[in-house]
């Protein structure tokens, strides 16, 4: 079970990143939980200032860009 968190205040890029993450996780067929973190203070707790960002199990993997599903797959596996 992996916890995927999308950090972003709700701009179009964050939604795209969330989609990519979902695609990646589904293609790998792993069990996961996707959470969107939109509260700016919670985002700061991750140390992220460049949104959108993606964290897996609480660890920030990418910040400031929309990672492709392929990239996210390699982060997940």
């Amino acid at each position, binding site marked *: 079970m992996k916890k995927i968190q999308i950090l*972003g*205040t*709700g*701009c*179009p890029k964050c939604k795209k990143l969330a989609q990519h993450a979902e695609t990646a996780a589904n293609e790998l067929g792993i069990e996961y939980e996707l959470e969107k973190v939109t*509260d*700016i*203070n919670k*985002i*700061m*707790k*991750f*140390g*992220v*200032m*460049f*949104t959108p*960002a993606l964290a897996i199990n609480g660890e*920030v993997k*990418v*910040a*400031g*860009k929309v990672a492709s599903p392929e990239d996210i797959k390699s982060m997940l596996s």
Partner: protein
Amino acid sequence: MNAKTEWKKLVLIIAVFIACFYMPAESARFNSAVSESLALVRDYARQHVLLCLIPAFFIAGAIAVFISQASVMKYLGPNANKVLAYSVASVSGSILAVCSCTVLPLFAGIYRMGAGLGPATAFLYSGPAINVLAIILTARILGLQMGIARAVGAIVFSLIIGLLMHLIYRHRQKEKTEAQMTMPETQLVRPLWKNTLYFAAMVGILIFANWARSGDVRAVFLCCPGGLSTYNVEGSIVQKSDDGLIILDTSGNEHRISTDLLIKTQQVKKNNLYERIHRFRWIIVMFLFAGFILMLSNWFTRSEIADWAESTWGFAKQILPLLFVGVLIAGFLLGRPGREALIPARWVNAAVGGNSVRANLFASIAGAFMYFATLTEVPILHGLMGAGMGKGPALALLLAGPALSLPNMLVIRSVIGTQKTAVYVSLVVVMATISGVIFGAFF
């Protein structure tokens, strides 16, 4: 069905229904507002899209891809040199985000994890006002003077506001988050001079393609009957009759000025250099373009060019619809300059005409609370200025408007608390008012 979200849609549908039900489709004012709105969209499409907006999107796209945001943030970290932090914060908006949804996390980050309240507020204030698209569009549509005043005003005032916030709260304990700043990795692929040349070529194309001719006459006229604001336009007279005159201004727009509004016309000396550059502008643009293509093919990899195209396309997709709706609304409410639509020009005049302190203050406060979607402040101001808004209040609105809105005040409040937010908002309003008064007095 989710009752929590669905009721909003219901309210929306009912509102639209009531609006349609009572639509004054036969009223002359309503119809002229509709046709003004369409005419304004056409004018924008003809005058501003091809030569100005499209190159501007390419520049913004290039900035997003080729300038590393992290390298800027380095100067705003916790141990940053203070002087450097303030200067970087006040200008970095020009190379960073376009929409406030990316400015706010950066602001919160600088405040919590980086250089602190002062630089963070400086950044927050200048960011939305001096991003490259906003400056280009302001200069193109509202005039070069306004574009420069907006950029310079935003930089100077962000420094002052940042420093004041720092001074007011210098004794407060810092609420720092323990978290470390996470930076996207930086990779320097090209030497700086190559990047500089690349950007210079693009900016050059934008500037020369839009090079205005030099005028031989300047007309000073009143905005509208009984109005308080005067404008001047420089160009050449196309037609002169008893009703008034038609002037072709230096950027190719026609202005009809009726005799009763005309205050004076004066001859101005043609600037030969301007005229010559204007004549050869396409040749210059072609040379720059050729150089630009050479740079692209020699210095950039295929995937970089693809990234650039993608981010340019992203900006276009994000901004064009907003701008389209913004122009429609501006035209519907305010009409093209010199014509009336839904809102009578005398209302605009009463509220923000001339350059009184009251007009400037009103413009600042209205701007501070109103929400402008990215860049839509420009067509709206264009409409307001055409309907009699003075240049001072226009600048005041430009300085207070995009930096603040009710929704973003709420987010700022959640980061720095109610009191600091109130101080920040009042500082912005006061500063914008003062700069409006000064600008209006001189220009």
